[in-house]
């Protein structure tokens, strides 16, 4: 995989299994984000392929996208929309959503107080929490999270760890790029080191 005129990823093989968390580690610029974007189908690898449930993802992009939830560097939130509207529109594209489910997700990430504030007036940490609420609401079996702990306070980190643990308990898979190994209750992370 090339970024600009630099070869960043070569000869990498990664597996995600149900109920398993994979921690992608590596120094800055080692290609963690690139790898996750390839796995999410946002980038096309030069060689090799991404196989999901026995089928290459390029065969049916939409079906694959529907099974994954991606959280990138940017939170993917509309600054003009309130927290509630952001979830209603973004998650609504994927599945039917009741107002109660949105309230519950906002409560889980501790945003009940600010659910009617426009996202632009939320702090970076609060926006991250809102993005996590979105990931959780999609109910996708595969989570691809790029530095999900950025900007979160310790309570936020704890909540996110709980949310991930619950996802893994339910048989979901998670690929997480992070500098610190995520400490998720009851689950050990498989580690992939990009050096």
């Amino acid at each position, binding site marked *: 995989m090339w970024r600009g005129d630099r070869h960043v990823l070569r000869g990498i093989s990664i597996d995600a299994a149900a109920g398993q968390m994979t921690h992608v580690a590596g120094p800055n610029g080692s290609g963690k984000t690139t790898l996750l974007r390839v796995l999410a189908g*946002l980038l096309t690898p030069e060689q090799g392929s991404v196989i999901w449930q026995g089928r290459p993802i390029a065969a049916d992009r*939409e079906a694959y996208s*529907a*099974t*994954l939830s991606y959280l990138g560097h940017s939170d993917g*939130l*509309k600054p003009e929309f309130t927290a509630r509207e952001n979830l209603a529109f973004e998650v609504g*594209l994927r599945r039917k959503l009741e107002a109660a489910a949105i309230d519950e997700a906002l409560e889980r990430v501790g945003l009940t107080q600010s659910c009617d504030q426009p996202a632009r007036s939320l702090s970076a940490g609060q926006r991250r929490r809102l993005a996590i609420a*979105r990931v959780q609401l999609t109910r996708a079996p595969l989570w691809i999270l790029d530095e999900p702990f950025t900007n979160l306070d310790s309570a936020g980190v704890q909540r996110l760890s709980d949310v991930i643990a619950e996802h893994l308990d339910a048989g979901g898979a998670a690929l997480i790029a992070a500098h610190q190994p995520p400490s998720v209750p009851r689950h050990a992370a498989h580690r992939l080191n990009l050096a």
Partner: protein
Amino acid sequence: MSNTPAADAVWLMYRRDLVLAFRHWDQVAQPVVFFAMVTTLFPLSLSPELGELRQLAGGVLWVAALLAALLGLEFLFRADHADGSLEQMLLSGQPLALLAIAKGAAHWTVCGLPLVLVSPLLAIGLGVPTDALCAVVLSLALGTGILSALGAIGAALTLGLRRGSMLLSLLVLPLAMPALIFGARAIDMAIHGDVTRGPLLLLGAMLVLALTLAPLAVAAALRISAE
């Protein structure tokens, strides 16, 4: 997992973009104000004589509408690209071409439709007889639709560029020339009391062609720009 039917997703996307647009009133109003300003420049600079203005009315209305519609195009995908919601859209599991149609339709509703609605007023100001107003509205309705579709391709292609707006105009304007020729001609013919069916039907055919091919091109361009 994706159990929102595609039609609902398109409707949701359309509504989302309309709500977003109405929270930026200034941006929505810009093209209409620009359209009105440019058309009033002509009587000021050429001659206030209605007979003379009438000769130019078709071309003036069309060129002004074309430039006004270009103004709004840059914002079509830019904000979504910047805040990461474009990525989420690509990964929503919905057919991207359909979401592109929804976004294009919303863009036309806030940028193209107002131009069509004020056009009779501006046309009267340029001395267009009331019998010809119907042709003005019809030709601009079809024309702004064509421009939204073509412009969406240009906007999606120039998304990754830092200063894409100039390139966007250079890409879109040549493609819009056939529409300009027939659109301005339709108004001209209506002013002279001729039957305008021919050019209007041609414009309609162009719109159908643009609406059929543009969503696929936009979807492909968005995927490239998101990389």
